[in-house]
């Protein structure tokens, strides 16, 4: 009830912004002042759906994407032609607002498409993490690679392979004996819900764009303040040879285990050895009324071999999805996504087994624009998992999204 009241209050505040009478009833444009130097936009979405007892849709913030109130305010402050400050303040389920993004963008040469961004910067890796225009996610659920919580954690490590395998399918609340012993949510392959802190450079050409970044965290565990001695290096190249086609390749590597957890496992001075390496490939093609996207995210985490049976191989995971959207009428579309997340084998006392339970999700849905920036979505998803307390789950959800 408290959540609903907060949602209603936010909606009233957002919609109550005074604008001249227009053909549409709700404001549809960002608020700009100081001669356009300051621009404020926002997003509000409310999702209501089935109870996700298998925790298939839980996010970094331990909230289900199917039962979520999300609100954010984004701001851009231009300071001459060379500098601008960008930020986003967001809250989920009425929690304390957090700075999702806050960075300074520097353009050294006004007429050259080369930028330096410093602060809490957008993800360099992958494609999905930057899809923030509300209609960019045609469904309510998120791709598994960017949302599903594996059992692996950055602040706690398994003593041996058996302990790791005992957490299969329990990424929403995993617990290990090295480092932080409190149960907590695990890591996705690459999170879409938190941004990293560091410096990013971006150059755009007629056909090729390139981005590189040095940040405090890793793609699965972005950080505001570094908790180990290493930095992540990430890069992305995208090519758009013809209108409507985008091909992208990304790579990232950096230590992901916190100094405290690494010290607890193997002593001081080793935290830089336990790295996450991620590789990604993505393609998007659109034409007329359809849009198709496919993306693959591969991640490899090196974890210390401590007790027997030892984890004698890096932990690997591969997330792949294909999604499509087709507009059938003005303001009405249908969409679908097929998604799979797989893991490599680790040998425990009972023999080899995938270190986390593979998951497959099929989601179909539709969206209807009540007005340009007020979108109603419905979706239904079928989740199957080879492990955990709940192995099959069919979930439905409705979402109302407003943006300006």
């Amino acid at each position: 009830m408290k959540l609903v009241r907060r949602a209603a209050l936010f909606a009233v505040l957002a919609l109550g912004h005074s604008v001249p009478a227009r053909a549409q009833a709700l404001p549809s444009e960002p608020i700009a002042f100081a001669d356009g130097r300051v621009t404020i936009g926002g997003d509000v979405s409310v999702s209501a759906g089935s109870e996700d007892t298998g925790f298939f849709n839980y996010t970094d913030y331990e909230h289900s994407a199917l039962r979520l109130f999300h609100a954010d305010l984004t701001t851009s402050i231009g300071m001459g032609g060379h500098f601008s400050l960008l930020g986003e303040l967001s809250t989920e389920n009425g929690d304390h607002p957090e700075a999702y993004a806050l960075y300074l963008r520097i353009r050294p040469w006004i007429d050259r498409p080369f930028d330096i961004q410093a602060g809490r910067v957008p993800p360099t890796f992958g494609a999905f993490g930057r899809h923030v225009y509300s209609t960019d996610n045609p469904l309510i659920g998120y791709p598994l690679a960017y949302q599903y919580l594996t059992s692996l954690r950055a602040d706690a490590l398994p003593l041996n392979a058996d302990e790791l395998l005992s957490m299969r399918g329990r990424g929403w609340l995993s617990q290990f004996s090295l480092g932080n012993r409190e149960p907590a949510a695990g890591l996705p392959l690459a999170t879409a819900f938190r941004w990293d802190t560091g410096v990013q450079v971006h150059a755009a050409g007629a056909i090729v764009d390139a981005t590189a970044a040095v940040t405090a965290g890793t793609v699965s565990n972005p950080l505001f303040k570094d908790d180990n001695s290493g930095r992540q290096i990430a890069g992305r190249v995208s090519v758009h040879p013809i209108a409507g086609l985008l091909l992208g390749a990304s790579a990232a590597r950096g230590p992901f285990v916190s100094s405290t957890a690494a010290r607890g496992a193997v002593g001081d001075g080793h935290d830089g050895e336990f790295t996450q390496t991620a590789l990604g490939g993505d393609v998007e093609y659109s034409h007329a009324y359809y849009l198709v996207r496919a993306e693959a995210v591969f991640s490899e985490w090196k974890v210390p071999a401590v007790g027997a049976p030892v984890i004698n191989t890096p932990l690997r995971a591969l997330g792949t999805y294909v999604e499509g959207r087709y507009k059938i009428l003005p303001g009405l579309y249908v969409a679908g996504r097929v998604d799979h997340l797989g893991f490599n084998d680790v040998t425990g006392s009972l023999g080899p087994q995938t270190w986390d339970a593979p998951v497959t999700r099929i989601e179909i849905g539709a969206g209807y624009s009540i007005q340009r920036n007020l979108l109603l979505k419905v979706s239904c998803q079928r989740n199957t998992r080879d492990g955990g307390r709940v192995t099959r789950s069919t979930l439905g959800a409705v979402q109302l999204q407003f943006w300006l």
Partner: protein
Amino acid sequence: MITKTRRAAAIVIVGVAALMCLPPRAIVRGARNGAITGRVELRRVPAPVERRPNVADLGTPAASIDLSDRLTSVVYLDSAPRGAFEQVETPRAVMDQRGERFVPHVLAITTGTIVDFPNSDRIYHNVFSLSKTRQFDLGRYAAGHSKPVRFDRAGVVRVFCDIHSHMNAFILVFSHPFFSLTDNEGRYRLDNVPPGTYNVIAWNEGISSEARPVVVPDGGVAELDFMLR
């Protein structure tokens, strides 16, 4: 007797009703057409639609704002003289997509007009409207391609791009030809208006003035200025 009285009353009522249905002015047959000119002054220049502050951009987006578009107002007759609705052929108009903008930002047309929406950018655009006057979605198409839309109902149509949220435009569809777009100084001229009394309205970026009466003299020019916003 009662029947006769009722019949007479009915004739009077029908006659009055018929007169009320006529355009609210007297048009002199054989008279020379006149014109209405004037200026629309904007107390405040409407701010251009800025891009949404997309914090996920990896670099500075291309600049694409042209303020002069926002100064364009439309002045039109609230209702037109009879005979103003005859059209010989289907008129055509163009609304280009150039530099991530619709050009022109304001287009005024008559009902039955076909508007072409060419894409002159290297990137995809997706023109659509959810306005009640005309709903359409042209899908995504590349540079060098164009798609047409016919507008058969009078009203205001807001046009957007599904890919670039800052792209927007207005199409004002009239059931008569008595409308005029202002120049950059706000001046307008409505030509070929038959002499008579009319109500005139000025419009700018979704804001309309009150309807103001004006008398167009035989072969002469009436002046009428507006203040908006």
